[in-house]
């Protein structure tokens, strides 16, 4: 009985095109796993910071004090940036030469909107890459497989008797490309779905927070005016 050939040996003996398809897929898989872990840690950190900040914010602390606490730090993340941007604009306008209340509120809202957009962008970093890997790598793998099968059938042309043994190695080699494509695509797809759902939830919380902050500032402006 012939020795069972391991998958690694089959890969090592396959043709240049199948080999390069496999290399591309391996790179895509590696990169997408890096992104998955990075996003995972990042989003976990953002959610933790958000919980902490909201707790702090609603603990009854003076907003001016909170602002001066945060303003100096340079590793602000997520919701803190929105708060700092909105409050900075508000205090700058309200301390300046008597702008009217509408102008102050509009300025603060605009600053928060810009900060929100930036935050959304930073939350969604790499998600597009994961989506691309998830949707294209099965096709890349299929391409490798189809090519490999084509070649192994082409080698049959000159044979009078086609046996399974003469096509089996080529097909088995070619199918590895599809397996590899799926191996790259599945984690990327799961990661993409999971992370984009989490980003959605976070963005809703951001928007709710910025509306709440607008309300508080509005009240403060009118109380002052």
């Amino acid at each position: 009985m012939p020795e069972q050939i391991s998958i690694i040996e089959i890969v090592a003996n396959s043709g240049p095109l199948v080999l390069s398809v496999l290399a591309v897929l391996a790179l895509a898989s590696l990169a997408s796993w890096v992104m998955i872990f990075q996003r995972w840690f990042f989003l976990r950190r953002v959610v933790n910071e958000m919980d902490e900040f909201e707790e702090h914010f609603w603990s009854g602390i003076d907003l001016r004090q909170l602002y001066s606490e945060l303003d100096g730090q340079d590793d602000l993340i997520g919701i803190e940036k929105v708060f700092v941007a909105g409050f900075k604009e508000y205090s700058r306008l309200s301390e300046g030469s008597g702008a009217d209340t509408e102008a102050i509120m509009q300025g603060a809202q605009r600053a928060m909107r810009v900060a929100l957009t930036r935050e959304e962008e930073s939350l969604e970093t790499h998600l597009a890459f994961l989506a691309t890997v998830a949707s294209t790598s099965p096709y890349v793998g299929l391409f490798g497989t189809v090519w490999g099968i084509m070649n192994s059938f082409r080698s049959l042309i000159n044979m009078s008797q086609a046996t399974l043994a003469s096509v089996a190695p080529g097909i088995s080699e070619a199918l590895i490309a599809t397996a590899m494509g799926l191996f790259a695509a599945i984690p990327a797809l799961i990661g993409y779905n999971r992370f984009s759902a989490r980003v959605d939830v976070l963005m809703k919380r951001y928007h709710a927070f910025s509306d709440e902050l607008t309300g508080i500032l509005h009240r403060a402006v009118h109380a002052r005016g």
Partner: protein
Amino acid sequence: MTLELRYYIVPFVLALAVHAAAIMAAYVGWSPDREESRLIRPQMVNARLIVLVPPEVKPRQVVTPSVPDKIPEVKPEPEETVPEVVIEEPPLDLDEIRRTREREASETLLELLAESSFLEALQDEADDLARSDAADDEAIIAQTYRFGIYKLVVANWSRPPSARNNMEAKLLVELVPTGDVVSVTILEPSGNGAFDRSAEAAVRKARRFDVPVESRLFERYFRRFTLLFRPGDLLR
């Protein structure tokens, strides 16, 4: 949006670990069991054991005392309770194959004989294995398949009431590589139409036989072969 490299070191290490684990799994774990590819071995050993039971072993009389073998013949006509079907392949050594076929036919005796001749058989088996070469192996594989055909035909045969002990019908069977029967022709009729038809019907009813996948073996032994029908169960 700035890509700070320090946030990527741990994820990169983890991703490498995931892939290393996957490669290890591919290298070690995921190859199919090798036992599957050996499945044919035990069958071959069985067939040899059948072959090795010598027909003239004494217990034969003890087992079937009610049937004194009246017909004087060189090869022992089987008196057991199954019809005998001899499968020959024309170009090869006919005698050898006929002999092995008949010993296979006496398979039912094997269980009774096995105990007495088991050690002897094992010894012979070892000797046989020692001198077996490729051609020998091939013949043995063919024989195991022939045994399967024999069993299937016997299972599908219903004995017509007019069948007699001395009747013989020779059929030519043609198969396609999938094992499907494409034609059955009566080469030498027995003279009894019902018996001939029953023999032919048995092969047709079997419809499909298990044949070797290797085309060389198939072409050599199973593309066309003859079946010899002899009813041996009239006492039943």
